[in-house]
């Protein structure tokens, strides 16, 4: 794991220095998951491919430099999701997922008990609360919390106004707080960690 991480750092450095082979290797290590993850946010494979390429080109041009701290994966994701927003802006809004049809419940997979433990299902008090949110509210939380976007960026990704993102995040927090209060569980993370700035 740590050797992998240092390997990634070496690759990043070599790519920024203009080593084409390193660019190819970095792509081989990261393009796959980035493609999968971006595909969950955009229905058009072409736009996703563009965003993935733009991500690595940005690294190649040294337009984005890794300043240490945090995982390389998080760093690359931060570039990737913003490149996707740029690509969506070029292509128009029709390429976005409609949030209500993003997944079909019928095809949901049951996660094995072992995996449930792995991904932290013992803290599942929050999970039903999250699941109870409407798709729009969840999408707003996903963009601002999980994807780490600013309100403005989230608004562009979701194709709604900034004010809408703000109000949805606000409503989502309230709904979560209420749901957790009902469950009499411990406290929700502090409000500012939801990062709606």
């Amino acid at each position, binding site marked *: 794991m740590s050797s992998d991480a240092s390997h990634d750092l070496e690759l990043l450095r070599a790519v920024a220095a203009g080593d084409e082979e390193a660019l*190819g290797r970095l792509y081989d290590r990261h393009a796959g998951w980035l493609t999968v993850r971006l595909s969950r946010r955009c229905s058009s494979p072409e736009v996703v491919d563009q965003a993935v*390429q733009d991500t690595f080109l940005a690294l190649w041009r040294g337009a984005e430099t890794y300043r240490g701290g945090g995982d390389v994966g998080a760093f690359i994701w931060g570039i990737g999701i913003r490149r996707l927003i740029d690509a969506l802006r070029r292509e128009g809004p029709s390429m976005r997922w409609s949030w209500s049809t993003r997944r079909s419940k019928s095809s949901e997979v049951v996660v094995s008990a072992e995996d449930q433990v792995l*991904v932290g299902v013992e803290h599942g008090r929050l*999970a039903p609360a*999250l699941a109870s949110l409407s798709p729009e509210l969840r999408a707003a939380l996903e963009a601002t919390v999980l994807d780490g976007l600013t309100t403005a960026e989230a608004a562009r990704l979701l194709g709604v106004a900034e004010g809408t993102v703000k109000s949805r995040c606000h409503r989502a927090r309230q709904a979560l707080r209420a749901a957790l209060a009902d469950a009499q569980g411990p406290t929700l993370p502090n409000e500012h960690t939801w990062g709606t700035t």
Partner: protein
Amino acid sequence: MTTPFPDQVASADGPGGHLGGEVLAAYATNRLDEVAAWSVEAHVTTCSACRVALRAFVDRDRLARNRSVLLAAAAVGEPGPARRLLSRVGVPEHLLGLLAATPSLRRSWLLSVLGVLAVVAGESVLANHLWNRGSGSTWGVLVPFLLVGPLLVLGGVALAFLPLFDPSHQLAAAAPFPGVNLLLARAVSALLAALLPVAVAAFFVPGPGWLPAAMLLPCLAVWCVALAAVTVVGATAAAVVSAATWVLPVIVVAASHPALAVVRWHAQVAWAALAAAAAVVAFVRRDRFEMGWTR
């Protein structure tokens, strides 16, 4: 419904702490419920092994194709600062790409322009200095400088037009991109690239303060004449003709009048008229710019 929470990634990390293939597959094919997908994403953000494992769920050909496009785009090279600036002010990117295709050529040419101007300006300064010791000042020492400016513009245009300087000119000729656009783009860049050093050098030679501005119209006129002549005669003959439209007046005027009369205001009117007339000819006959079809 299984609803894991994204917060607890750290516990899933570590020895053996990786997501099962089934979960990854469900995530990659968008069959995981949304909250569970959040957990997966939070995990893969920091877990290198699971990231690599996700690669298996993307079409190999798609990844390979995008990889080669990426490497091609990377190898094309990055636009320099000048190109980015021009692109920002609205010059089409592909046009800049065409112009950038001859940078080494342009660099050596620009260097020679600067070299020639430096020598000529130096000579003028020196001659003026010696002259001043003797009698009163005369602008006759400026004749070499006057001669050289527009001729350098012409040299740049020749670079743009003569196939000799473009090793792949046959490709350009057989391509659908309009030959006239290519030639004009190159000629305009040659004009601008020559005007700048000529105007700067004019500040340093011992002429009057208005000399830099006075050089612009003759340069433009010679440039227009060259373009017009190329549509009528061959490139070499056109170069001779347009050079003569500048050299002859300079020499003739210098013989009978003060040398700078050739760029004073009444002469400027003549240069402007010549530039306009030549521009009209070049425009009317623009179809003739195309290589191989000038006969």
